[in-house]
């Protein structure tokens, strides 16, 4: 039987940017502003932060005051400045690694789903096996394997997140591709003799973009947690780096006497992740998709 019961005229694309923006919920808009703020802090922080993140002059575990807004930490460093400097770390690492994982995993997943056959089987089994190792355990193994010399380096952390995320994103992309491949326009393109790359680029990617964008948002939202967890355990950024997870680990002995030294980085982390998640939810809603937070 013919298609939709209600063949209303499609929302025209000439509707304008303003109307498009209005389709976002209030929470998504506020969260987006918060993210922009974080970005701004990351970019300009060093210009206006009151202290160097490594300066140990003051009394350790001093409370909040006019000279030290968030107090001082275990070594007498200014917590506020450290939180500010830590912002650029976490944003840079999270976004870069997730983006790389999206590009690599997405391309492989789409191509694998299109090609099918034994190549697809092999790739997917390989990815499933990597995914069978719980997230954090795999990250720790990879860090352990890298050896002490690379400890704390940004490159290592990016590669670790890439290793953990790429198979998951590839699996998602492959699922989308397998579904898209059944569409007639892909069949027709195949019958024309188009190459795999051409089909992936022209036919699949534009139609998978929505799903992949949401997937990117979900992964980007968890990345700061993963990175700071590693920092907390001592396997991420190394002291004296102003990494939030590390800060929480260092200062939690004095959580009673100087709670701000723990709560400040914790709060910054939580607000960042909440904002990322809200923006992801908002974008998904506008695109008309659901958000699945599969581990």
């Amino acid at each position, binding site marked *: 039987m013919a298609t939709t019961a209600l063949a209303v005229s499609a929302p025209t694309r000439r509707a304008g940017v303003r109307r498009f923006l209005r389709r976002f919920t209030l929470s998504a808009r506020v969260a987006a502003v918060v993210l922009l703020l974080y970005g701004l802090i990351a970019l300009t922080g060093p210009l206006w932060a009151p202290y160097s993140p490594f300066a140990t002059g003051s009394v350790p575990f001093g409370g909040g005051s006019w000279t030290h807004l968030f107090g001082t930490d275990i070594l007498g460093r200014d917590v506020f400045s450290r939180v500010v400097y830590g912002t650029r770390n976490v944003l840079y690492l999270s976004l870069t690694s997730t983006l790389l994982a999206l590009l690599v995993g997405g391309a492989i997943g789409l191509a694998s789903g299109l090609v099918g056959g034994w190549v697809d089987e092999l790739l997917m089994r390989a990815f499933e096996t990597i995914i069978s190792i719980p997230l954090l355990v795999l990250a720790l193994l990879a860090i352990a394997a890298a050896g002490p010399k690379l400890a704390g380096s940004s490159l290592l952390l990016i590669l670790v997140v890439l290793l953990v995320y790429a198979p998951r994103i590839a699996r998602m992309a492959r699922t989308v591709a397998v579904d898209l491949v059944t569409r007639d326009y892909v069949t*027709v393109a195949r019958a024309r003799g188009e190459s795999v790359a051409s089909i992936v680029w022209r036919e699949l990617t534009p139609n998978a973009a929505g799903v992949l964008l949401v997937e990117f948002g979900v992964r980007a939202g968890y990345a700061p947690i993963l990175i700071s967890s590693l920092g907390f355990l001592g396997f991420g950024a190394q002291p004296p780096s102003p990494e939030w997870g590390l800060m929480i680990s260092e200062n939690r002995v004095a959580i009673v006497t100087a709670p701000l030294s723990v709560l400040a980085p914790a709060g910054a982390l939580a607000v960042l992740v909440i904002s990322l998640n809200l923006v992801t939810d908002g974008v998904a809603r506008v695109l008309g998709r659901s958000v699945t937070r599969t581990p």
Partner: protein
Amino acid sequence: MNAAAARAAADPALVEVDGLTIDFWSNERWANVVNSVTFSLGRGEALGLVGESGCGKTTTALALLGFQRPGSRIRAGAIRFAGRDVARLSRRELQKLRGRRASLVPQNPATALSPGMRIGAQLIETMAVHRVGGSHRERERRALGLISQVRLPDPQRTAAKYPHQLSGGQQQRVVIAMALACDPELVVLDEPTTGLDVTTQAQILDLLRRLRDEVGMAMVYVTHNLGVVASICDRIGVMYAGDLVEDAPVAELFQAPRHPYTRGLIAAVPTIAAPHRNRAVTLRGLLRRDQLPPGCRFAPRCDFAEAACFEEPQTLLPVAERHAVACRRVDEIDRLAAGGDTADGAAPLRPAVAGDGLLDVIDLAVTYDRRARLSLARRPPTAIVRDITFDVRPRETFSLVGESGSGKSTIARTVGGLLRPLAGQLTFEGRDIAATVDSRSKKLRREIQLVLQNPDASLNPRQRVQEIVGRPLELFFGLRGKARRAEIEKLLEDVRLEGAFAGRYPDELSGGERQRVAIARALAARPKLMLCDEILSALDVSVQSDIVELLLALQDEHGLAYLFISHDLAVVRALSHRVGVLYLGELCEVGTAEQVYAPPYHPYTHMLLSAVPEIEGETVLSPAIRTDPGVASSRPQSACPFADRCPWKVGPVCDEIAPPWREAGGGHVLRCHLPLDELMRRAEDSALGVGAVEAVGADPSP
């Protein structure tokens, strides 16, 4: 049927729908879906609600059960069931009504049945929640009785099965049984046979007719298929864009349709008896929802519309006994139309094209069994299609007809290079061609083009029309820039679309427009052969006839050959030069359209033709209809595939030996153990009137 209708005329109405108006919330505003619909239904009466997609028939029918889709509202009007307004019932009262006094047979039986409950339990549940039947034992008995009543075999075993263990036709019977479980006064059927094969559909319709005779319940039957409604209903309500435009008894509606839309709709339905109907009465234009006038919604497409028609909303006015039409010019139209209704519209059937084949398919066999192709299998692979031999000549339309599982799409895809054949040969213009697309030359890929079924999925939703149509131009001819744009415009013109369409996205186009773009895309490669795989199945009837016209015109203008795949016998007859009939992967009969649709018939062809519900005439079903189709793998490979269902079966020879090809002259061949004169005699005995050559000239509309 007539007795029930007569009874209904005397009784007070069971259902009264009065000015029903329903809106849906969509794109941030309320869009009207049902517009002030008024009709009534007597006890035991069967009303058909027909119309094309989006006309509001399903919404109206479901509203009778108090069903409101989330995001919809009843803006005005009332639906009275036995005197009480359904929309105002409390949830408890509604629950007591549904299933007990009014029940539903939904469109898709597979999804309607609970996957985790056995059939018997689901039937018993219906009775239990309405306290029908007294005790559990009594209900069990009744459930078994219902299963027999819907002609399902072995009630005990069937009751113990889960839904997924039944076929589509069987599931639909179960759903019907569920709807009848509590002896309802009204049964609403929402397109219950859509998605079923023609023969399965015939079985279900046959069952419904019998049940009506036995039980006498009132029915509201929603469908887009006029033939179906003709065979089962007393009255028909025709809906267009939310309006009820005509309400008349069945016979009268088909013999003397009064509303311009009804006339156009009936004229657009292809029938086997008269494949080329009167082209003077056609539905032009398209339904544009955003451009509906405040008055008569059909006015923009109406040949008889005046200025006042656009302004004044039309109401149903009686024009004859029990016949009402919503048109202010209904009396004048009779006079005006009489002049144009000449019987010369019927074009002759298309003769066979002479000459050598463009495409030769020889002994083709295809399988989906991947392991077999790696030749690691211990047993021979089960072929989906085998022994397929036919040819398509230049500028000719060769159609493959068959039901689901016949393998017709498989053959099309193999010719298109998407499937590797297990055996056999494909030749194009005299030269052997490679099996898969990758090994074919660019020229060949260009010369054979594919147009597929689903208008939703045949175009990339993220590409504009100009990219979709332009890609083959770029790929095959290296056209860019201005030359490309010019060619795109020309192609759009060829498929009768305005140039402005080039910048649009598929979701801005209707189903018919999308199919035209798909055809333009295929045309862009300047092919010699177009493979059309069920390209009309998902379109409305009026749109189908437009596309058929387009295909015929393009064949003339561009010298195309078509390999046309379809299950719709009437469309195939209108379009084809020659036809091949497929059953379970084997060819039964091949010949010109005229030859195949006239006796002598292959027994399967005979059954197929008898199963098609036609607008006029009584349907006389072949007894084979009562049987269920088998599965390709379950019979020995050498025998006749139709043997276990054939009403004219000779004997064990049909099960063991492959039937021989018999020549009936003029290129008409069919495979059967029965000799031709015997087949001829059987066909004449069965009084199957369709397809007889004499029927062509007689145009049914007065």
